[in-house]
């Protein structure tokens, strides 16, 4: 039996949503600073308009839905699911005002791609997009990667209550680093800001050495950092990483992509001296194994095709695409069509597998995630051992994830359900792609890239693709980033509004 939502439920949701929208309004003021620094008058007004709209709608919600009631799990889930849709919608306003998007839907696609750290892009003439708008594209990845709720928690609004934890956990974060959720959010920002400074310095210096002007080198450096560390995949240039033709820059971005794919909890353990955890952790071990397996698949195919006969191009092209896919980043030093015309089907399957698997939980990556794969594998080992041992034997399987954990049915069930949902999402997108006339493998590639928030493209994502497919990919990016449960609760809430018992 589902109960019909009360007016107080709507008030709780509206009140928190109002706070989150106001937070977004503040974030939108950052590109204004960039616009002033780079003397771009028109883009500054685009962001002032968008920010103003955020504040007006946010304050209206705060006034209309004023309440002191504590947020419960259902509210938390619905707030987060709606917050990501609203953020994508409001974030699209300045992009659309830039005049570089064919329609508002395209701007929404770009905005959702940014917030969900996907990296698929529909911008026209990127090389002439203002630096202010370009900065916003990358900033949306930085914001989305840490989590919109994490920003709100860490900066100024929701106190460290049970409600705060509920909306934090609803944002596809299964773990908190510190006992207090506010401290956790702040630690996530500490790691990100420290690496932002370091990464921008290194990338800016490399860009300057490669021949970019000082100002542009550090601007590109900051943008590339935000997209690489948050495993996003946007670049300030239209040819992605291929534009720079720099081995050094590619090496630095590989480092950042790996760092972004590491669990924030693991960062905490490493930073506090427990460095052995890296080698014991089931997630890191699983990531290592899946990276080797997918690399082997790609290697076999690239060798068969004799594409890169020398070791450095072989490493630069093969390993770079793989690490970009596996960490869910989407940076590429190949043209989209090279995947179709040069790479074989087997290597595409390897990349699809890597994209689908993703990085660590409680990181900025999307996809199934290594912990779930590791837990399912451990459960499989337990079942095989159980069959081989005498019937009376009680077997206890353990795994190491920050501490020793006894494998229980609840762990396996949660992992299997999420994996099945991801497979369904990948397949559904592929079927839709085929419905619009794209070949199977290409549809599956693009669908997995969108749903696992990767951003590598095989050429389907263009301005001319069908609008319905754009909407499907937007929904896939949304569902993939939030890991389903929040979205199912939102759907349940809508159903209950019509069919629930009073």
């Amino acid at each position, binding site marked *: 039996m589902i109960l019909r939502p009360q007016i107080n439920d709507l008030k709780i949701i509206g009140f928190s949503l109002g706070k989150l929208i106001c937070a977004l309004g503040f974030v939108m003021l950052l590109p204004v600073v960039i616009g002033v620094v780079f003397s771009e008058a028109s883009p500054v007004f685009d962001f002032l308009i968008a920010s103003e709209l955020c504040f007006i709608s946010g304050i209206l919600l705060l006034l209309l839905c004023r309440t002191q009631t504590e947020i419960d799990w259902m509210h938390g889930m619905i707030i987060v699911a709606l917050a990501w849709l609203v953020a994508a919608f409001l974030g699209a306003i300045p992009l659309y005002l830039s005049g570089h998007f064919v329609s508002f839907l395209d701007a929404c696609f770009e905005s959702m791609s940014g917030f969900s750290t996907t990296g698929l892009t529909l911008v026209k003439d990127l090389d002439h997009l203002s630096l202010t708008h370009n900065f916003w594209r990358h900033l949306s990845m930085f914001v989305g990667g840490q989590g919109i709720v994490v920003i709100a928690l860490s900066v100024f609004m929701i106190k460290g209550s049970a409600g705060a934890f509920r909306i934090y956990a609803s944002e596809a974060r299964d773990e908190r680093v510190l006992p207090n959720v506010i401290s956790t959010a702040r630690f996530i920002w500490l790691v990100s800001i*420290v690496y932002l400074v*370091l990464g921008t310095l290194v990338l800016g210096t490399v860009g300057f050495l490669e021949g970019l002007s000082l100002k542009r080198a550090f601007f590109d450096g900051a943008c590339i950092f935000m997209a690489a560390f948050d495993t996003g995949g946007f670049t300030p240039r239209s040819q992605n990483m291929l534009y720079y033709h720099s081995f050094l820059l590619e090496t630095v971005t590989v480092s950042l992509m790996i*760092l972004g794919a590491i669990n924030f909890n693991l960062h905490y353990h490493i930073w506090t*001296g427990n460095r052995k955890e890296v080698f014991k952790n089931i997630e890191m071990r699983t990531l290592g194994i899946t990276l080797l397996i997918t690399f082997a698949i790609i290697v076999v195919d690239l060798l068969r095709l004799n594409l890169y006969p020398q070791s450095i191009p*072989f*490493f630069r092209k093969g390993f770079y695409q793989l690490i970009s896919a596996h960490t869910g980043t989407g940076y590429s030093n190949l043209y989209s069509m090279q995947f179709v015309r040069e790479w074989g089907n087997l290597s595409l399957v390897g990349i699809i597998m890597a994209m689908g698997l993703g990085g660590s939980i409680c990181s900025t990556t999307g996809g199934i995630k290594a912990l779930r794969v590791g837990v399912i594998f451990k459960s499989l080992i337990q079942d095989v051992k159980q069959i081989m041992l005498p019937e009376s034997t009680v077997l206890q399987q353990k795994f190491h994830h920050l501490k020793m954990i006894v494998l229980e049915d609840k762990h396996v069930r949660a992992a299997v359900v999420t994996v099945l949902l991801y497979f369904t999402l990948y397949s559904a997108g592929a079927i839709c792609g085929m419905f619009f006339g794209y070949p199977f493998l290409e549809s599956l590639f693009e669908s997995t890239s969108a749903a696992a928030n990767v951003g590598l493209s095989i050429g389907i994502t263009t301005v001319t693709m069908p609008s319905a497919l754009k909407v499907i990919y937007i929904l896939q990016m949304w569902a993939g980033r939030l890991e389903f449960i929040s979205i199912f609760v939102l759907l349940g809430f809508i159903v209950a509004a019509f069919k629930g018992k009073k």
Partner: protein
Amino acid sequence: MRIKTIGSSVLGIIFEILFTVFIMAVFFIISSLITLARVWVFGI
């Protein structure tokens, strides 16, 4: 205590960066060995 925490964090950052370099090195060595093996073993 605070100095110790900052020191530990700096060491942690250095460790993480070295760890990513280690992963790259492993895959670079594998790539090099594969390309060498192709020439030496298969002669192509």
